[in-house]
């Protein structure tokens, strides 16, 4: 199948400092290439500081890569101007780690999930409301909660609202940036199941960024392991988890197999 997203030799460098003319170049990531087939999940796994989130920002067109190409639906999206980006942005949406800071505390649920529609589509109030009802239905938030503010919802419900907002513009690609990491274990499982359901019913493609290799192995078709801004291992999820080739992956598997941690639990 033709890939939905194709990343070629992508690199992002920052220049820091600048005081007294001394600049320091920091490479967030370099030489990153991968392809993501439609309706599949690629997990980007690695320790903090590996460059995962910066890579996600570049793919979401929130940051401009220093070099390399990103092809989305056969079209190069690097170097587009703001107007051209407006056509791409609805197709690529993000869900962040912490729903407390990613949802505006002063808006109610209805306003939160319809905000993307206000920006990108012209709909009547009635159409918007119908749209919101359908979205909240998909993420299993009951309609009675629609006028509440985020603080009145539990952590899991907030993340459901964040997912509903990401779905509002009918995206093809969802970037899940540690979207499960801040949740309790019992809620993590609920949201993981919801993401699997949505992938099936809406034909979504996921880029799942996480440091939780276990969850990556469960949700993803392929896993890319990042270390110091490079992809050090890329392969089918099952293979990477059971038969890791790179030392970094082996360490991550060790951290997650629980064998070291849990003599009794496994």
């Amino acid at each position, binding site marked *: 199948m033709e890939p939905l997203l194709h990343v070629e030799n992508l690199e992002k460098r920052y220049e820091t400092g600048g005081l007294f003319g001394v600049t320091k170049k920091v490479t967030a990531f370099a030489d990153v290439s991968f392809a993501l087939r439609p309706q599949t999940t690629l997990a980007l796994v690695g320790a903090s500081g590996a460059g995962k989130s910066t890579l996600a920002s570049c793919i979401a067109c929130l940051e401009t890569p220093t070099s390399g190409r990103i092809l989305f639906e056969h079209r190069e999206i690097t170097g587009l101007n703001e107007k051209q980006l407006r056509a791409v942005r609805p197709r690529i949406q993000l869900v962040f780690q912490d729903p407390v800071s990613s949802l505006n505390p002063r808006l109610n649920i209805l306003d939160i999930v319809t905000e993307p529609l206000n920006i990108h589509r012209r709909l009547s109030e009635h159409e918007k409301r119908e749209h919101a009802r359908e979205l909240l239905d998909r993420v299993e938030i009951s309609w009675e909660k629609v006028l509440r503010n985020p603080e009145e919802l*539990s952590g*899991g419900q907030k993340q459901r609202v964040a997912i509903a907002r990401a779905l509002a513009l009918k995206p093809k690609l969802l970037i899940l940036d540690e979207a499960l990491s801040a949740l309790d274990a019992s809620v993590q499982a609920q949201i993981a199941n919801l993401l699997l359901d949505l992938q099936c019913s809406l034909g979504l493609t996921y880029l799942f960024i996480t*440091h939780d290799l276990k969850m990556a192995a*469960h949700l993803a078709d392929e896993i890319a392991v990042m270390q110091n801004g490079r992809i050090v291992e890329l392969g089918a999820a099952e293979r990477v988890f059971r038969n890791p080739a790179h030392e970094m992956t082996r360490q991550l598997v060790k951290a997650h197999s*629980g064998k070291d*941690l849990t*003599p*009794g*639990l496994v």
Partner: protein
Amino acid sequence: MKPLLEVVDLCVTYAVPLHEREVALSGVSFVVERGETLGVLGESGSGKSTLAAALLRILHANGKIERGLVTFEGEDLMQLKASALQRIRGRLIASIFQEPLIALHPAIRVGQQVENVLAAHQPASRRAVREKTLEVLRTVFATDAERIADSYPHRLSGGQRARVLIAQSIVCRPSLVIADEPTASLDSLTQLEIVALFRSLGDQYKLSMILITHNPFLLAALADRVLVLYAGRVVETGPTQDVLSSPRHPYTRDLLRCLPPIWHDGTSRKSALPVIPGDSPSPAASHQKCVFEGRCADRMEVCTAREPAAVALTNIHKVSCFKYGG
């Protein structure tokens, strides 16, 4: 010998505008023996952070300890005067909080921040304080302790900041450390390093610890005993091995089932994980029934009649559930 800490019937409520007071902890009793690590397992809303704050009497202004006996080395912490309590906090009972970036002052070098704790409790010459601080920093940092002591928090990684907080907590050689989610903000590899550090400190300093977390793996690695909190109630308590490998309370059982079981053969990827239906409980004013009843797969008629009492399965493993008598 008497336990280091004994908590009996601790009950904490929070004032909520326009509502009745919310019960955050109810009837919480446990002991911590000398040299032991007691793990407190709980999800959000279970009251686990309230527990840490209540023991040190640093609850938010709207929080109130309704009742409870907290005896630490023979003294009732709930009755102590503020000045006496001040001598205990940080010196005899130290705490490590969750978010190292918030817990550390952004504009003071971290070495100085560790020194400040020591100087507040054990006044000595600047030089002696500095030397003792470096000694502790050298035990938590294998290399580079001097350079790190001179750094500001933003120059350090998450793991390094966590180590600074640990140094701060042990610098006065406390007899009890209360750690509230000490690794929650760290990635899995750094978590392993911190686990190894706690293990070596446990041997070296003979620490007693209350380790509060939502992560069963952390408890499996570090705790001697586990206490499971749900909606402010202790639902199960026992040796770590027993509670984690043969959990008896339906909540503990279901919670452990939710973890991705990827290392087992025969579980298929991308299949639905087992879940606990419903949401974490919101603390209500009072409960006349089992707090887990609404989400429990083993619900019986009696579960709505009253709250279950703790049943001793063995002399060390207790469960509050009607399945075992209640």
